[in-house]
């Protein structure tokens, strides 16, 4: 297709490089330097999408990142799977050779969309429609309403496969970050660079220049182009300056932590990008001492009937397409304005040979631009309203009429003006997003009818300059850029450089807008009748929707936003929010600042998740801690369970075994011969110093002072609230040294807890703590054959029960490796826990496996470990306890040293309700049917309260819940542990566990020990 709307000359495109791309299956041509939008417009294509809710035909309305309408999916072919990207703004997507794109939300195609019927049904889907639809029955919602909404509404289509592109994360540190390289930002960067600060200048566009790219005025006696090039060269030569183009500063977080997305290869032709060695994007995390915002402003449109027809765009966008891309947006243009500045677009259009009419809603229009247009012979209507735009898939005409004095009604004959595009402007909104993200507020400036940055706030305030500060004159902007940089240099304690004097052609940028507030153009019918007044194009929110929300008594702008979905689309209301506030202020009868704005949150523009993830998706997402024996487990078919960051062997299924069979086999091996568990993950802390015993005495509930060297003791650790926090065995290594073990998941918390007390409460205690979790590998031999096996590998220690008793530890040599052997047991069976230096863990393990073969040694995982300990009623902190249970509740009053002076939690335990007999207490639970294994988490209720069905009409009082539940081959039946109100005194009582399938399972409360109640085995 030929580029019929391309001007014969001009623009910043490179006409020597023709680029082919596809849009909705059709091939088009553009030039290097185009965006997809400018190339489509050059080919006369205005209709580029269907709207979110009503499937209205929509066209390109802006020429930048704020675009609400022209969303396209990119890289859409089957070969490009893994690189597809939904909802790109065509106005911001650089054209490259081979790019494939499609419009969004159109079915079956853009020109004929069945969903457009939603438009005809509009009166049935008003504001708050989604919320109102929730009033239907649940079944109706799931079966009918939700599927219909999901199908009909929506935008682009995401990729079906994982993103294949590479992304990098970078850290940057800067004295000053300047956001925006328009005239303001360039001037600021120049001052900062000369002052010697470390400068990072961030620009989202492909090149520096900002507004000068579309309006090349004269600065410092030179062409804007030359001026920009001069400043760029200056910055490039300065070693302390880094300029990042194609980089969007997307967020400002606490203490000036900034995030910036740099697009590295997206602009390359498709084949070149594929061959490029660089990452697709870089995600910069920038720590800045000072931040200068020079982000400029967005234009906003006037709101009138049918203002969403393709061909109706922002006046400034028309100018940008003409000046930057050499593209006419049509042949017959109507400009609809309420301020002086926007008229410059009409002048440029007339210059480009377009038929131009101006409709100015102001009663007087006298600025230099007006005079110039009049002199050019352009028809110029003042005090006129645009009553209605006419057309279907493209605007065809505008109906205009004179207005009454206060602009509330038409006051004369309507007439129709033919046009194929309309450029509208209702003023400018400073881009205050980053200012607000930094925590600062906004002030409303009634002269320019926009929000401007308010007083800086927070620990690390930003400094706004230029357009984003509401300074619309180029000279003011340049001066404020320089002074912002000087202010930042002062704050840094640097000698601020003098700013070069700059003069611009003032005429083109008068700065003063002489704006007339007119948020809704008067028309001949109410807003609810006839064509709609569109406010938020991307979420299809109309003026009538806002008025309806107010009629339904919504008052807060935050509520109205959520009810109407205004500003909640991917553009976050960049072009719609202020118009909406203006309309609401009229309806509510309060001023715009009294309504206030909604919250500005990062990211400023949509950000690819892949870039944030960087090089850390999948296996790299989190640290995986593995034991020295991990590879053995993996090679022997273990499945792994995540315990905190640890990968623990869960169970080792043999061919044909399911989990149940494998765990059953592993448990039987422990009870009948010998099993081996990798217990390396348990937290291990050295407690050393003259006061080590006193320290343990204070952090555990039981007594530690008299524990002899070579002995081990189980300890329970409480919080100040008296609730169980952690448990484990600690062993006395020397008079002044203990080795404490903690639960795998609790290790880090316990260490912090202990250090807090040592460092801040008991500073008199001479104790230090060292984590040695990863310094020791631990193989735990459990079962009646454990001693026979170990004695084959250890001949320097007498392992007989007479000389090596339960709850003792000894230094020994095992398989030639220096080791510590602990006679402690978490299975209730004869057990030896063998600790060796971590790098010898694998050697120890394989030696034990080899020597153990004749005993049928069986590796067992955490699941069997859980079953085995449950058979003995041993608690698992965090599974059987939940932070609301104290030692009495767990039937462990025996572990509280009654005559101890103090220990953490002691005072709380004396509170009366801590020993209330009706607290939830730890009990065993046996089902009447021995084969029934209860689900963990199941609730228990009294027999009298047993519900009649799976969905009882009224709630039933809960008595407690099942915390652990397993099949136990040693007990020959299912076993369970749980927490039940007053449970210890209720042993023998029958309760009911109501199941999700409606059955009521009968259970009996029992003691918590199911195997070897007298505890003979572990002493064996």
């Amino acid at each position, binding site marked *: 297709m030929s580029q019929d709307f391309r001007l014969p000359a001009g623009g910043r495109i490179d006409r020597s490089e023709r680029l082919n791309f596809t849009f909705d299956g059709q091939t088009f041509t553009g030039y290097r330097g185009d965006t997809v939008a400018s190339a489509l417009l050059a080919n006369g294509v205005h209709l580029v999408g269907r709207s979110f809710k009503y499937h209205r035909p929509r066209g390109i309305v802006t020429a930048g990142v704020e675009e609400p309408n022209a969303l396209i999916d990119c890289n859409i072919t089957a070969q490009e799977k893994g690189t597809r990207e939904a909802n790109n703004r065509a106005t911001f997507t650089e054209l490259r050779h081979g790019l494939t794109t499609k419009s969004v939300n159109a079915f079956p195609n853009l020109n004929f969309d069945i969903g457009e019927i939603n438009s005809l049904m509009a009166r049935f889907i008003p504001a708050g429609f989604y919320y109102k639809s929730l009033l239907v029955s649940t079944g109706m919602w799931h079966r009918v309403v939700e599927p219909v909404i999901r199908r009909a509404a929506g935008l682009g289509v995401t990729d079906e496969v994982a993103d294949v592109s590479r992304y990098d994360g970078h850290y940057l540190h800067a004295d000053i970050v300047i956001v925006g390289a328009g005239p303001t930002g360039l001037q600021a960067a120049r001052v900062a660079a000369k002052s010697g600060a470390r400068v990072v200048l961030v620009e989202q566009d492909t090149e520096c220049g900002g507004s000068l790219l579309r309006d090349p005025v004269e600065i410092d006696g030179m062409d804007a182009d030359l001026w920009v090039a001069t400043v760029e060269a200056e910055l490039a030569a300065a070693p302390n300056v880094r300029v990042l183009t194609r980089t969007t500063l997307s967020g400002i977080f606490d203490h000036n*932590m900034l995030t910036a997305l740099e697009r590295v290869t997206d602009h390359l032709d498709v084949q070149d990008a594929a061959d490029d060695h660089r990452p697709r994007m870089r995600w910069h995390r920038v720590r800045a001492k000072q931040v200068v915002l020079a982000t400029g402003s967005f234009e906003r449109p006037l709101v009138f009937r049918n203002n969403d027809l393709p061909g109706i765009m922002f006046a400034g966008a028309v100018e940008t397409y003409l000046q930057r891309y050499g593209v006419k947006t049509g042949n017959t243009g109507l400009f609809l304005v309420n301020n002086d500045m926007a008229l410059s677009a009409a002048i440029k259009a007339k210059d480009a040979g377009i038929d131009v009419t101006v409709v100015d809603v102001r009663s007087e229009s006298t600025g230099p631009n007006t005079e110039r247009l009049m002199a050019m012979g352009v028809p110029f209507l003042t005090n006129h309203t645009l009553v209605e735009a006419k057309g279907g898939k493209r605007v065809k005409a505008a109906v205009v009429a004179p207005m009454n004095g206060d602009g509330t009604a038409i006051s004369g004959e309507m007439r129709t003006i033919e046009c194929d595009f309309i450029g509208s402007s209702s003023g400018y909104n400073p881009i205050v997003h980053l200012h607000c993200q930094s925590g600062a507020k906004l002030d409303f400036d009634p002269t320019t009818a926009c929000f401007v940055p308010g007083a800086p706030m927070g*620990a690390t305030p930003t400094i706004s300059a230029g357009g984003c500060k509401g300074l619309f004159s180029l000279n003011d902007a340049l001066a404020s850029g320089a002074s912002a940089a000087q202010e930042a240099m002062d704050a840094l304690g640097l000698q601020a450089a003098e700013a070069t004097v700059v003069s611009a052609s003032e005429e083109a940028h008068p700065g003063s807008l002489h704006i007339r507030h007119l948020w809704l153009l008067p028309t001949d019918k109410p807003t609810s009748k006839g064509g709609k007044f569109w406010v938020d194009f991307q979420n299809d929110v109309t003026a009538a929707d806002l008025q309806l929300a107010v009629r339904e008594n919504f008052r807060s702008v935050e509520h109205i936003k959520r009810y109407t979905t205004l500003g909640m689309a991917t553009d976050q209301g960049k072009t719609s929010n202020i118009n909406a506030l203006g309309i609401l202020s009229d309806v509510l009868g309060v001023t715009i600042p009294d309504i206030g704005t909604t919250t500005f949150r990062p990211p400023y523009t949509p950000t690819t998740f892949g870039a944030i993830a960087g090089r850390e998706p999948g296996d790299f997402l989190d640290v995986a801690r593995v034991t020295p024996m991990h590879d053995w487990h993996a090679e022997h078919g273990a499945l792994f369970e995540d315990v905190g960051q640890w990968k623990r062997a869960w169970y080792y299924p043999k061919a044909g075994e399911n989990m149940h069979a494998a765990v059953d086999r592993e448990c039987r091996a422990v009870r009948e011969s010998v099993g081996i568990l990798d217990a390396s993950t348990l937290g291990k802390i050295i407690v050393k110093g003259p006061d080590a015993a006193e320290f343990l005495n204070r952090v555990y509930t039981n007594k530690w002072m008299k524990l002899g060297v070579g002995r081990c003791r189980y300890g329970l650790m409480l919080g100040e609230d008296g609730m169980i926090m952690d448990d484990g065995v600690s062993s006395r290594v020397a008079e002044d040294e203990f080795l404490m073990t903690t639960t795998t998941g609790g290790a880090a918390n316990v260490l912090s807890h202990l*250090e807090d007390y040592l460092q801040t409460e008991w500073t008199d205690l001479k104790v230090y703590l060292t984590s040695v979790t990863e310094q020791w590998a631990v193989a735990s031999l459990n079962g009646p054959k454990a001693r026979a096996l170990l004695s084959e590998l250890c001949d320097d220690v007498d392992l007989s029960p007479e000389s090596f008793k339960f709850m003792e530890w000894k230094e020994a040599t095992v398989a030639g490796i220096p080791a510590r052997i602990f006679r402690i047991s978490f299975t209730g069976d004869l057990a030896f826990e063998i600790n060796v230096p971590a790098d010898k863990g694998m050697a120890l393990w394989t030696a034990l496996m080899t020597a153990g073969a004749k005993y049928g040694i069986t590796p067992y995982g955490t699941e069997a470990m859980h079953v085995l300990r449950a058979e003995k009623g041993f608690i698992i902190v965090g599974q059987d306890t939940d932070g609301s249970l104290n030692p009495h509740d767990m039937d462990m009053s025996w572990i509280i040293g009654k005559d101890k002076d103090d220990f953490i939690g002691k005072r709380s335990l004396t509170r009366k309700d801590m020993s209330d007999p009706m607290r939830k207490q730890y009990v065993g639970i046996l089902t009447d049917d021995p084969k029934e294994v209860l689900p963990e988490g199941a609730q228990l209720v009294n027999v009298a309260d047993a519900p009649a069905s799976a969905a009882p009409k009224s709630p039933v009082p809960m008595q407690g819940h099942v915390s652990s539940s397993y099949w136990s081959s040693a007990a020959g039946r299912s076993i369970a542990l749980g927490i039940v109100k007053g449970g210890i005194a209720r042993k023998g009582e029958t309760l009911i566990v109501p199941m999700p399938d409606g059955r009521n399972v009968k259970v009996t409360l029992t003691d918590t020990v199911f195997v070897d109640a007298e505890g003979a085995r572990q002493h064996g």
Partner: protein
Amino acid sequence: MLLIRCPYCEQERPEVEFSFAHQAHKPRPEAAGEPLDDHNWARWVYYQKNIKGVAHERWNHAAGCRKFFNAARDTVSSEIVATYKSGETPPVPESRIEGEDLSFDYENAEGGA
């Protein structure tokens, strides 16, 4: 992300190296000269000041020197007004933002059995 100066390392380090512990300078009832009854004890265990304004907080340089220290932090702006070692007198007092304090009346809280 906050930048916090560790008073032991004498360096500003990013927040990820630290973990927040709890309210600083919270004397146990005995230390405050109060009777150790259930009311006073429960108040000490369960109530935190929750200041809107500059609050004294205990932090831990968990992924650094592992020392516990105190910080005076503005809970509105997140400005770290000062950090100081355990046992040192706070260099700045706590201050509640006038007229906007919605926090619990810690001093007169009803607590205990």
